[in-house]
């Protein structure tokens, strides 16, 4: 498949996040899936069965490592023991790429195990850019950083999130994972314009797209990765396809996880939206 980014990273097709509920199914049945995304930390804390499963999956499918504890926006010093383990895991599993989130997860050694929001201002941008560069130097590969879903905005922010994300990617020379569900969730939580968000992305740096379900609480949305993807999120995927076709797409499903085939069928719905976009693009070109 044709690469469409400055690192020539391939389009892996449509994948799903590998979760422990499905380990046996994936290893035994070897389902027809283009690729898997693994949560890095699930395989970094020890060996045992999880790592053995990851190795078996890596032998049969392309995979990507996606972390949740890099804490790139924290003011704590970078955790080089964490990075060493991540590098070891990467050497072992040979992912096509690896990444994490644009957020902080803890400070003063206390890990919240959540993706906490940053203030989007110049000083924070400079802080995160410097850390991304350090991490990339250590890992000797580009980081693929994801826009996070957020539930609050700091008054200190002086630029929209999409400007922060785009400038970070350019200044740190890193890649992006564009989560269109998070774009939608943040639109609902902050009243931001999702199309303006997509318009601001530097697509030569976007190598992966996430889609997922979320919980709509009425007053706000929570990025639960539960249930089917709603149509407005699929429509955002189609909008990305208009701007940047051929990105690797992945469905995340982390709450009330159903049978593997249900997750896979949900992921494959992406084909309809991509195909619809492709058809409408061809029709527009013919007019």
């Amino acid at each position, binding site marked *: 498949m044709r690469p469409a980014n400055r690192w020539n990273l391939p389009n892996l097709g449509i994948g799903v996040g590998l979760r422990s509920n499905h380990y046996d199914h994936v290893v035994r049945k070897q389902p027809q899936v283009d690729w898997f995304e693994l949560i890095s*930390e*699930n395989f*970094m*804390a*020890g*060996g*045992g*069965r*999880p*790592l*053995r499963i990851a190795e078996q999956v890596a032998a049969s499918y392309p995979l990507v490592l996606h972390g949740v*504890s890099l804490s790139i926006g*924290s*003011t704590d010093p970078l*955790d080089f023991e*964490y990075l060493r383990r991540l590098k070891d895991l990467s050497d072992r599993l040979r992912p096509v790429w690896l990444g994490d989130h644009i957020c*902080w997860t*803890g*400070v*003063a*050694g*206390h*890990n*919240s*195990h*959540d993706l*906490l929001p940053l*203030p989007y*201002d110049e*000083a*924070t941008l400079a*802080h995160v850019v410097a850390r991304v560069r350090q991490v990339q130097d250590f890992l000797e590969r580009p980081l693929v950083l994801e826009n996070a879903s957020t*539930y*609050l*905005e*700091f*008054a*200190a922010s002086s630029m929209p999130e999409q400007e922060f994300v785009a400038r970070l990617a350019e200044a740190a020379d890193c890649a992006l994972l564009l989560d269109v569900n998070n774009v939608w969730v943040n639109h609902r*939580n*902050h*009243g931001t314009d999702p199309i303006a968000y997509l318009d601001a992305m530097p697509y030569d740096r976007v190598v992966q797209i996430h889609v997922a379900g979320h919980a709509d609480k*009425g*007053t*706000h949305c*929570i990025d639960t990765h539960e249930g089917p993807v709603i149509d407005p999120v699929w429509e955002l995927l189609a909008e990305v396809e208009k701007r940047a076709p051929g990105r690797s797409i992945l469905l995340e499903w982390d709450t009330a996880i159903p049978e593997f085939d249900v997750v896979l069928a949900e992921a494959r719905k992406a084909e309809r939206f991509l195909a619809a976009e492709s058809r409408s693009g061809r029709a527009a070109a013919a007019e």
Partner: protein
Amino acid sequence: MSASELEQLERWALAVIAHRRGVRPGDAAARAAGLQPPGGAPLEELIRPSAQLAAVERIGVYANMYAIRLREVLEEDFGGLRRALGARAFRDCADAYVEACPPRHFSLSRLGLRLPDYLATRESERPDGAFLTDLARLEWTIREVFHAEDAATLDADAMARIAPEAWAGTVLRPVPALRFLELRYPVESWLRLERGQAATAEPVPGPAPGPCRVAVVRSGAAVRRLQLEPDAAHLFAAILSGQPLAGAIEACAGRPGADPRALAAGMSSWFRDWCAIGMFATLEGKGEA
């Protein structure tokens, strides 16, 4: 915002989010502890409201998720403890533990590491305190074994080939995924009975005190638990301490009340069972193949 103000903001925000009694008490406690946000600004000046939620409610979303997420992880790792305590007391226990021992490791799988020791310091607060500590210790051990490194295992034939005269110089090395516990309550049989039962909000009483000697090992993909009789447990502990086989057997036979003939009769089947479920990795010394 300067770099030092970003640090101030992060420290303040995390203190608020992680406070077990909610956002307002968390904000007050953070400031009282010297974790002032930049400029000492009030919460409403640090966080914008949305069209639907006030600033305090928006940071409250994170506070709720913090508590729920960590409770859920502990509940998954300590299902037996949750059953023994009941829903309400388990929730209080989990929240108090997280407050006393906040997560510091990058992996959530380590969250419960200190829970058995934490419960041990509070045993006197409840009549069943020692039972709860033992139960938590067994459940955490199961978790540890699940995540321990893989290793090749020694088969029973290799054991059988060791000539008796070589026993004095032969040491058995356990696989990394093996632990041996000697506990004060029969938590192994209690857990076997209770784990997997339908969830209940009410506490389930623990057993009367009684010794529990249990080996926990991962065999293939499954974690297995093997209760050991006193003689077998003594021999097993001696082997795990690194004693050569002959020394371990002599120490076991020399215990007050030990029956050397029963020991001799049991040993071959014990070793066969232990090897069959993959408890040992290598032989070192004279018995080495």
